């Protein structure tokens, strides 16, 4: 249905745009993993700004606007950026970000001054030197091995292969030198050498990419796919694989949305490279929310489940203590007061406990609608046999912990309750037995209340 309305008007030109986009994204993302892990995510941004003097110098020396000298000039200054940053960081003991900031702004300013000197003679616009566009890169053609393809695709293809080879062949070295440079040195290879190899490749990739597709895309692809896959996995190999897929996916999505999204608002298509960056951002947002282990939403849900379980624990333990003191079972309002629970979560917890058969409601026939819990009057809840078992284990854990804290760590009696309250939820049978042994199987806790036995 929706598909029928979207007329992508796909042509070979679009295929090349996507191919170039994917190549740029993948080659940057491969190296980006290590930049993110080494906390140098801003390096891509710094390099793309800092190469200006290299371009200007190449122009001033060669007096031509051919792209090969400019490419080399840019790569050399890109490597110099990394070198200077590292030098200032090490010698001046300046924070990485600050040294990067000092270096790339100074280099950019230097380049600007040089360009202004040159522009008296030739029109050399920094914008047009620095920022290519992916659309026009896909139009150019060069014939190689009997096939016609855009030169940008060729260059980026080579860069991608080089980067992939580097990552695969030096995987172990990169891994160790990223996580533990000292270990790398003791294992007999130079962490610094790996660092500078990485920097050289980052510069080459950045320059090759932004010359043909623009700086937005390469800066984004150095950081965003790697960050997204860092949210999804803990293993470096998986992280690299996932980041490659995320990078490719955002390139495809980006071109599609560059064509489609503006039409919803009645405009023509917009620039592709920027939409690729935006879709990478969208994918990162999804990964950050729904990552299986570290996703924000997932962690939140897990925490909610945990606090719900703790609430259930607290309810049965409270009922048990009431039975013990023979004060009669508490009403729902009393429960809410004692446990600081909102009425909705309390209702859900009580319903769950009833469904599991751990508490029962007097007067309500089994299988009564949940509304019966709401309607229950004071003193209506009591524990079933199962619930009493669970409650006894909790109370036993609590009091054993209190005893342990007093006997073994000589904590003051008035400070043990909070700790025991926290530990009781995570104490299983073997731990209780050990606590029992260590504290010489006491009958009462430090407050003088009886410690229930394991079985009734």
């Amino acid at each position, binding site marked *: 249905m929706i598909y029928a309305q979207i007329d992508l008007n796909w042509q070979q030109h679009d295929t090349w745009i996507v191919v170039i986009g994917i190549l740029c994204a993948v080659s940057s993302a491969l190296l980006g993993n290590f930049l*993110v892990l080494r*906390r140098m995510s801003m390096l891509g941004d710094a390099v793309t700004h800092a190469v200006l003097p290299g371009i200007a110098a190449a122009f*001033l020396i060669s007096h031509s606007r051919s792209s090969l000298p400019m490419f080399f000039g840019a790569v050399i200054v890109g490597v110099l950026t990394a070198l200077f940053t590292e030098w200032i960081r090490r010698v001046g*003991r300046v924070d990485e970000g600050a040294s990067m*900031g000092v270096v790339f702004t*100074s280099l950019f*300013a*230097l380049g600007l001054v040089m360009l202004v000197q040159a522009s008296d003679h030739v029109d050399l616009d920094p914008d047009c030197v620095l920022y290519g566009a992916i659309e026009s890169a896909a139009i150019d053609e060069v014939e190689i091995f009997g096939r016609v393809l855009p030169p940008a695709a060729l260059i980026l293809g080579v860069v991608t292969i080089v980067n992939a080879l580097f990552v695969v062949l030096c995987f172990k070295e990169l891994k160790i030198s990223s996580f533990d440079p000292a270990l790398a040195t003791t294992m007999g290879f130079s962490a610094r050498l790996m660092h500078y190899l990485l920097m050289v490749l980052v510069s080459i990739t950045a320059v090759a990419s932004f010359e043909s597709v623009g700086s937005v895309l390469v800066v984004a692809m150095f950081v965003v796919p790697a960050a997204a896959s860092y949210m999804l996995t803990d293993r470096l190999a998986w992280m690299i694989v996932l980041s490659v897929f995320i990078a490719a996916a955002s390139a495809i999505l980006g071109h599609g949305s560059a064509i489609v999204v503006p039409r919803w608002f009645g405009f023509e*298509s917009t620039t592709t490279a920027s939409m690729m960056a935006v879709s990478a951002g969208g994918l*990162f947002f999804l990964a950050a929310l729904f990552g299986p282990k570290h996703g924000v939403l997932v962690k939140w849900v897990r925490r909610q489940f945990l606090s719900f379980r703790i609430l259930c624990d607290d309810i049965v333990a409270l009922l048990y203590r009431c039975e013990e003191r023979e004060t009669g079972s508490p009403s729902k309002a009393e429960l809410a007061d004692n446990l600081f629970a909102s009425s909705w979560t309390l209702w859900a917890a009580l319903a769950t406990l009833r469904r599991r058969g751990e508490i029962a409601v007097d007067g309500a026939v089994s299988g009564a609608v949940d509304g019966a819990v709401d309607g229950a009057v004071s003193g209506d809840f009591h524990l079933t046999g199962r619930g009493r078992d669970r409650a006894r284990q909790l109370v036993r854990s609590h009091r054993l912990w209190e005893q342990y804290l007093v006997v073994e760590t000589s904590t003051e009696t008035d400070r043990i309750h909070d700790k025991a309250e926290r530990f009781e939820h995570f104490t299983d049978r073997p731990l209780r037995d050990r606590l029992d042994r260590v504290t010489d199987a006491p009958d009462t806790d430090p407050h003088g209340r009886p410690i229930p036995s394991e079985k009734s």
Partner: protein
Amino acid sequence: MIRGSRNTTDSDVSGRSVFSLGCLSNAGSSTLRLLAIACLFLFFAAAPRYAAAADSLADTSATWPTWQQWKRVLSLQDYNTRVVLLGVSVLGAGAGLVGSFTLLRKRALMGDALSHASLPGIAMAFIIASALGRDGKSLGYLLTGATVSGLLGVAAILWIRNKTRLKEDAALGIVLSVFFGAGIALLGIVQQMQYSSAAGLESFIYGKTASMGSNDAKLIIVASAIAIVVCLGLFKELKILCFDEAFAGSRGFPIVWLDIVLMSMVVLITIVGLQAVGLILMIALMVIPAAAARFWTHELWRMSVYSVVIGTVGCVLGAVLSAVFPNLPSGAMIVLVCSFFFFLSMMFGTARGVVIRTYRRRRLNRRIARQHLLRAMYEHLEPNTIGAGVKSSRFESKAAVTVSELLPMRSWGWGRLLPTIRAAQEDELLRFTDDNVFFTRSGFVEAARLTRQHRLWEMYLIAYADVAPGLVDRGADDIEHVLGPEIVDQLEDLLEEQKMTVEIPESPHGIGVPESAGPQPGGSTS
């Protein structure tokens, strides 16, 4: 004119900030000459580059500015020069102050991320205003849009940093690239809009310093004043936030809100500065003065003051240079002047500069080498001068050690040993006559003290840390140079408890004891 800046800002500023503004006001009267001198100084630094660039182009028409031009700029005759100088100097002060906090918070590139993040807001504001039939290019709309999207960028950075396991740098990189991408995409759309010309919208974020208007200057003054007042008012809170976030939290400071306040100051300064002076200069002003100031002091308030001064002076010098030499762009010149200051500070900074740290390390190394020498001599002489049953060796001025005997005691060569001996001879610790080295009395006392410290520590490690005697020498070797008298006292007490001798305790390696009786035969320094 600079005095004018004081009048406008001073009224909004509490008394505490008078110092930082004072440097602005002082710059007016007596410092004009100083400024000229500094300009000349800087000019010599800049001249070779200028000449080189000029040489490479054969037909360049670079001319030396005449005295008239200098005078014209320095006496602030042009209205434009006055506005630009005032604007950039106040901006340099505000950015320097805010930058010193972001630097310590390891977010030096915050300004970078935020200046990129303001682009979608600018484009969006333009689209919405145009769609409503207003003038999309009016400064108010664009600034509002930039501020809103800058604040969104801050929120995104803080969210990524606080809620996920990614670090500051990744958060900055993600926000920078994604927001900038969105901005470029929106600009792509803006260019298709019929009802209004969007030309020049990009230049909003790449503003040009030289074309700064008086409105820009006023905006900058207001924004900097707000930032300065807030930063000084919350100085203690921000300080504690920068140095120990966890501690601030435990003392009940609302760290998230403080963070947001600080970042809002960054947004304010960045966005106002951005449209007046451009992207790169703004980033540079947030980073370079603060990073340079860090080399001069360990105290935050001093650092802030220095940062403000460096920012202001750098801006003024850069602007003056660019006004005198017509084809040096002013923004780039300010950045270059600031980074020149940065390198001066990095080299010669009195607290953390490279020169001072190298000097300190050299001095320490020299002291350590001398102490090693004294102890090696002492340990070499010990077996000869110690009598049976006598615990400590006596001073004998005739007992000599040859250099070739000293050489194998440590991993030092002639090249290091001889200068050390000569330096010690100059301080009258040793006498050095044809290959024989003798103690003077003071040298002997010093050597005995060092050896004692070394062995006390060795005994301590053996008695209290259960380290095997064969392993304690290395540990004691490192620490003997830094043991203060208090620690030596403590060691003596501890060892006395263990009934260990504290005169000069015997070496656990058997130095000074007949070899067969030693617990661990072998040289201590092997």
